[in-house]
């Protein structure tokens, strides 16, 4: 598993970092910490406030493990060629993490595009980022960044709005295809939070759709085979927004928004952002 953490210097990024750390502790995923700044924002490579934040996130993350338990312990020394200026390279001795990859990167330009490009080029399976509470969803002082990332990413996205323990995951599905990857991300989240899982079938047109019911049974069987108890229920698609707005403080809202999802077919693209914004706490968009 490869996780991309996009962090800025605001407090919600520290909350998101906690989620990243917990997930990495379980999964030993390859991890990239990404900072984004406007082109020309600083005469040096990184603006001081962002540099400080990235240093803090790196140290917090790496110090979360005790001694030799860390798969990210810096133990792998090797020589690498680094660019000094145009047409000049220098061989430098660098130290890299041992068992699993850990790297800190900086991109410049439009924040949402930078995050999406990094995830695409790095082959990320999950993007984690924080944002402000409420419907505005600010990231690095700009509105709409988390919504755009959630709407346009090829992989799953976890948006962390505040530091809350998660005791229940509300996973909303429709009758269409559920990718193996989305189930796997959901399973890792259930395992990490030791959370109760409730799968909500979203009925697109009123009345009981046979396909929604069939999907719920399949999901129920999948988890029964793995000894995991889940609750299921069906709601109308018109009620989805009010359900999201009414979720509890310790709920993680998980939305299947894959390419073949009826949720993304029925709702225009910005609806993903709207649902994400309506979420009270953390939101997982699954692909």
């Amino acid at each position, binding site marked *: *598993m*490869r996780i991309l953490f996009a962090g800025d210097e605001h407090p919600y990024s520290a909350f998101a970092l906690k989620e990243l750390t917990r997930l990495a502790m*379980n999964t030993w995923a390859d991890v990239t910490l990404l900072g984004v700044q406007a082109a020309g924002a600083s005469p040096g490579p990184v603006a001081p406030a962002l540099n400080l934040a990235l240093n803090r996130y790196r140290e917090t993350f790496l110090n979360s493990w005790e001694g030799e338990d860390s798969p990210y312990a810096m133990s792998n020394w090797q020589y690498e060629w680094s660019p000094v200026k145009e047409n000049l390279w220098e061989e430098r001795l660098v130290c890299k993490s041992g068992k699993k990859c850990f790297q800190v990167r900086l991109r410049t330009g439009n924040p949402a595009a930078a995050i999406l490009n990094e995830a695409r080029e790095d082959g990320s*399976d999950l993007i984690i980022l924080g944002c402000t509470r409420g419907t505005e969803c600010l990231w690095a002082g700009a509105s709409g960044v988390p919504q755009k990332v959630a709407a346009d990413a090829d992989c799953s996205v976890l948006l962390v709005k505040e530091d809350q323990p998660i005791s229940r995951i509300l996973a909303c599905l429709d009758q269409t295809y559920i990718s193996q990857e989305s189930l796997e991300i959901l399973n*890792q989240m259930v395992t990490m939070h030791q959370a109760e899982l409730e799968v909500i079938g979203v009925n697109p047109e009123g009345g009981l759709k046979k396909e929604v019911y069939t999907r719920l049974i399949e999901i129920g069987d999948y988890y029964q*085979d793995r000894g995991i108890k889940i609750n299921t229920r069906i709601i109308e698609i018109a009620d989805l927004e009010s359900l999201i707005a009414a979720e509890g403080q310790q709920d993680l809202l998980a939305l299947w928004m894959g390419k073949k999802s009826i949720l993304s077919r029925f709702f225009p693209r910005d609806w993903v952002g709207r649902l994400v914004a309506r979420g009270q706490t953390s939101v997982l968009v699954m692909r």
Partner: protein
Amino acid sequence: MAQSKLKILILDDEPIVCKRLKPSLEKQGFEVDTFNRSFEALQAVQNTKYDIIITDLKMEGMDGMRFLQEAKKIHPDSEVIVITGFATMETAKESFKKGVFDFIAKPFNLSEIQRVVMRVEAKIRGTQG
């Protein structure tokens, strides 16, 4: 002289995982057998020496941890890669204590597992001289 193909065993109770992995590893030049039940996989290990074993952990009957322990008893130099959809820090640590080569949480890209398998191959070929 052409090197002999390395043999890989994949054990995962989800057929879709085996279906994804088998062709991609075969394309890389490995001989691949897949199993969805751990007891059948263990029988295969008793009859065939696999160079690389890729196993899921959470399975009905004999789980992956027990399977890898049994497989290592039969062929201690088989290299094991654990793949799991329900990862915990304990299972990661225990896997390495039992001598696995790598621990990969699901979901993963095919390229991720291909890279790990290539590292195992380099280790095996290096050892074999």
